[in-house]
């Protein structure tokens, strides 16, 4: 497997940041004496002390444990979101450009219709179909994001189709999968990965906006976006508690952006 080792310094910083957040989360998850739903209403909204290193939330639950669990959950679910939208978008985009003709035209019309449908409607309706399932929520978000991958991969594949190297490979008898692996994928992967990095960060922020309209709340799960919504009323009483999930989200977004690299910031 070819692992690209030409990450720039900023990209490396981003990767390190993300990995250290994951490591923090795993360590706390193993060693913490508290669970994420253990309440102690007498010590609610406590500031950091020796018992609770990051303080407690409005139910008296340990913030550090909840943050660790939230990081893991948010990471895994945004990864799910990104992988599903990537697979769908890239496969459809490449096949549309390759096959061309009627298939591409009809797919374009379908895409236009899907794009015209307000994303909020789609997400809320999918959530209503399977209430209470977090994974479905993230899959719904990925259904809104996949069209970008489609557009970019289709545009790039279209120019590649007519390139001499691809035509040569085809003439030499190599199959479609080989052509994809050797020619198309290396060209589109930088842009795709950039979009994936931004998409992962956006997924977490979208969860927060959905939580704001009371969708996706499932106590006592800890999720970064939902935690910032639940702790929002305490912005004066206990601002350090609200700040914690916000800072973690900022670090995650920063990590993803640094990982995405500085050249392609224009692609959102």
């Amino acid at each position, binding site marked *: 497997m070819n692992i690209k080792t030409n990450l720039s310094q900023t990209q490396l910083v981003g990767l390190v940041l993300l990995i250290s957040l994951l490591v923090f989360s795993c360590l706390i998850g193993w060693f913490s004496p508290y669970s994420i739903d253990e309440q102690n209403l007498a010590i609610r909204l406590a500031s950091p002390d020796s018992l609770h290193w990051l303080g407690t939330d409005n139910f008296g639950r340990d913030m550090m444990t909840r943050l660790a669990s939230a990081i893991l959950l948010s990471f895994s679910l945004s990864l799910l979101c990104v992988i599903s939208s990537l697979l769908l978008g890239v496969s459809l985009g490449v096949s549309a450009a390759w096959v061309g003709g009627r298939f591409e035209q009809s797919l374009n*019309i*379908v895409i*236009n*219709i*899907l*794009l*015209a*449908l*307000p*994303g*909020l*409607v*789609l997400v*809320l*309706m999918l959530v*209503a*179909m399977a209430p209470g399932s977090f994974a479905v929520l993230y899959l719904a978000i990925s259904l809104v994001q996949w069209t970008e991958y489609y557009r970019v991969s289709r*545009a790039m594949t279209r120019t590649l189709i007519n390139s001499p190297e691809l035509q040569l490979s085809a003439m030499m008898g190599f199959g479609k999968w080989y052509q994809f692996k050797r020619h198309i994928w290396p060209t589109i992967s930088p842009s795709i990965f950039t979009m994936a990095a931004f998409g992962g*960060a956006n997924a977490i*922020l979208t969860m*927060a*906006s959905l939580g*704001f*309209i009371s*969708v996706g709340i499932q106590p006592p799960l800890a999720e970064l*976006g939902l935690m*910032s*919504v639940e702790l*929002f009323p305490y*912005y004066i009483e206990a601002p350090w508690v609200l700040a914690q999930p*916000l800072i973690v*989200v*900022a*670090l*995650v*977004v*920063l990590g993803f*952006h640094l990982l995405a690299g*500085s*050249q392609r*910031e*224009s692609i*959102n």
Partner: protein
Amino acid sequence: MWALVKRQCFQLMLVIWGVGTLTFVLMRSLPGDMAYRIAASRYGQDNVDSAAAELVRQELNLDQSVFSSYLSWLTDLLQFNLGNSLVSGLPVIELVQHQLGHSLLLAIFGIMLSALIALPLGVWSAQKGGAVNTALVWLSTATRAMPVFVLGLLLILLFSLRWQLLPVAGFGTWQHLVLPSLTLAISLAAVSNRVVHTSTRQVITSSFYRFSRVKGLNESQTFVRHGIRNIAVPVVAFIGVQLVSVVEGIVMIESLFSWPGIGHGLAHAIFARDIPVIQGCALMMGGLFVLLNGVIDLLCHTIDPRGQQER
């Protein structure tokens, strides 16, 4: 020229039909009894019960088969009748006009403000480079990572509480518009200033730009003559994409500032399974999407008639 317009019109109609049908199909596949949900939105949680649901079911003829209700919706649509809300009985067109109009107002002002913020910042950071650019990158990322409601809260605390300049929430006067559009503008500008930066850098480091300096034009003349139009194309395309997605993405801002926008209205309509409202909103927004795309394409073509590399 006319062929283009005809094609756009055809596409518009196709998209509207497609969006409407898709919404219809999705709504029908939702589980749960619609009558109960509509009754809950009509009578409030204190008053909703099985008797109310039964009344709603009979009144609205909800036992109608899928095919016949689709057909009746389609015939209504062809007569430009979007129907009445199942919850309030008021015409959908009034509701959509009120809410979509407010959302569009907020979106347009937000985008204009964000352009006012992002353009100078992006150009400045591209021209100066170095420390200014790095500072701006960090600031942009920090702003972008904040959920929009936190940003909105900070602005409220500053402008309404501390300085008592603007109202906290509501609608009706221009003062009510300032804070929500400022919140939207800042969160959009955090992204678009980087686009402007990239585009400007590309133009400034290009050979034709250097040549213009070589042949004798000074900095500002070069920028005005050769810089602006070349910078504009990707920026306008990007802002166009932002505008399209922002109309329904501003749910948080609408909720926080009690702004009567379509995002919040749509969410409530989906919770209440108010099918005519959802379909009406989706249709209008779909049509708006196609129109906006057309306008953006026209603008891009005007700025750079050489044609896009994208399509």
